[in-house]
């Protein structure tokens, strides 16, 4: 992990209030693994903003992030253009463990809203390793849907919207059974979704990626703790996470 200035290569609005930024960083592109995030400084903001890595391009040395404009920080981030520079710490946190996956069984990927970006990065890596994926993505409404094509190209994909304005209606949890069998699941999304997943799939091995308000983002301030079953009693989302095994954390 490092602090570096990265150049903005490209910016795109890809859905309602949703922006994709392509950043140039040889180092981060080379070392990042799915689930890790960038901790981004913004002028006149005390706290950095954690944003997951959505993909990397090893040839172009670029890192793509994707975020929803929800407040003053993301609003400011959306104003960055080609040629400007961002001060980022990263790649931060630990990622989704995938080294021990079996080759011959599919995995289930579940992403909700702004939890989709790290799942997309994971999809790309699993695909590169030849692991079959099935994906369920949840969005608020049609206007917020993004990356559908990217997922479809690489495996079975179900899109769910809260109001049914696009494809299926309801919650991602409603579509897990229909997804069929899988060896393990990986999920990122809002806390209610992660809670529902953990309580529905008790016998399945699963990894969840969490969000919490962060101070330092590097493991020092203890702002971002999550209660765990182990002796310490807690883990740090920014450093030990954001990804945890579903059965090690207490939600």
């Amino acid at each position, binding site marked *: *992990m490092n*602090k570096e200035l990265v150049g903005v290569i490209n910016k795109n609005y890809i859905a309602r209030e949703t922006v994709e930024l392509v950043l140039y960083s040889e180092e981060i592109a080379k070392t990042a693994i799915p689930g890790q995030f960038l901790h981004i*400084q913004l002028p*006149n*903001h*005390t*706290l*950095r903003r954690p944003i997951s890595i959505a993909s990397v391009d090893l040839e172009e040395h670029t890192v793509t992030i994707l975020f929803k404009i929800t407040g003053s*920080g993301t609003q400011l981030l959306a104003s960055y253009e080609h040629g400007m520079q961002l*001060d980022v*710490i990263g790649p931060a946190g630990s990622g989704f463990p995938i080294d021990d996956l079996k080759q011959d069984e599919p995995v289930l990927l579940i992403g909700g809203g702004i939890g989709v970006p790290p799942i997309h990065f994971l999809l790309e890596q699993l695909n590169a390793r030849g692991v079959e994926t099935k994906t369920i993505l949840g969005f608020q409404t049609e206007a917020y849907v993004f990356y559908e094509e990217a997922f479809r190209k690489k495996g079975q994909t179900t899109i769910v919207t809260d109001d049914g304005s696009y494809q299926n209606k309801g919650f991602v949890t409603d579509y897990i059974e229909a997804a069929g069998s899988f060896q393990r699941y990986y999920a990122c999304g809002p806390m209610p979704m992660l809670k529902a997943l953990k309580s529905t799939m008790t016998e399945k091995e699963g990894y969840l990626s969490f969000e*919490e*308000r*962060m*101070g*330092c*983002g*590097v*493991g*020092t*301030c*203890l*702002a*971002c*703790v*999550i*209660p765990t079953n182990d002796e310490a*009693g*807690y883990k740090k989302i920014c*450093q030990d996470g954001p990804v945890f095994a579903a059965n090690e954390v207490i939600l």
Partner: protein
Amino acid sequence: MDLSVSLPGLELKNPIMPASGCFGFGREYSQFYDLGILGAVIMKAATGEKRLGNPTPRVAETASGMLNAIGLQNPGVEKIIETEIPFLNQYDTSIIANVAGSKVEEYEFVAETLNQASSLSAIELNISCPNVKEGGIQFGIDPDLAYELTKRVKKISKVPVYVKLSPNVTDIVGMAQAIETAGADGLTMINTLTGMRIDLSSRKPIIANKTGGLSGKAIKPIAIRMINEVKRHVDLPIIGMGGIASAEDVLEFLLAGADAVAIGTENFTNPMICKEVIEKLPEVLQHYRFSSVKNVLEERVI
């Protein structure tokens, strides 16, 4: 340029140290630079037993600042001595332990235990943590309790005792005088100001603990005023803090009356800040016609 300063128990190569709770025990920031460049390190608070702190969310951003209510989460003083102090001992820097507790006896126990650790340069009594429900904060706002606590810890401690002042008081000078009379070796100030932010959607405080401590640039003018006021009435060395984010800020604190400084919140904004400030300080001192840090302390008019 000579940046060194001397305070009781602290022969510092420069007056810059990270503030308690904003640097953990140094492990994470050691990835960013060599901790040996720091004047000192003030460790995260130590209590008698391990504490798990407050529920989350524990932080919220504010204009030029932040609120925190970590709640003194720490592995307990014995674990700190066992695993954290040896880590910091690898670096050529002074170590200051931050001592917290709910009762006088807990402060005494922590201080006594810490005194058994080798190579601890000083302890800082955190009598002002606004984020734990019982104890702590009372010591920081009542001069009689502060006097009593300081006196009892001073009796036990071989290493110099600095007492950290809370800004949430009417009469900061009165507090400082009580602590001086009790025999403290120095003061550190300021801790955070109690604040709150309300989330408009949930209609509830953002921080689970409801209130949190305000830190960062927003509080700098209050810190400068309090340090200046205390320095004019009390004869103790002061480690100043509250919103420092540049070498210019360091000079402002020294001119106000601080003898060394600590940087807290800005570490989160910029993990390299302590290093950058140390590197920039000579240039800034020279620009304002000072020849060394000691020269600032001599020439300042309080």
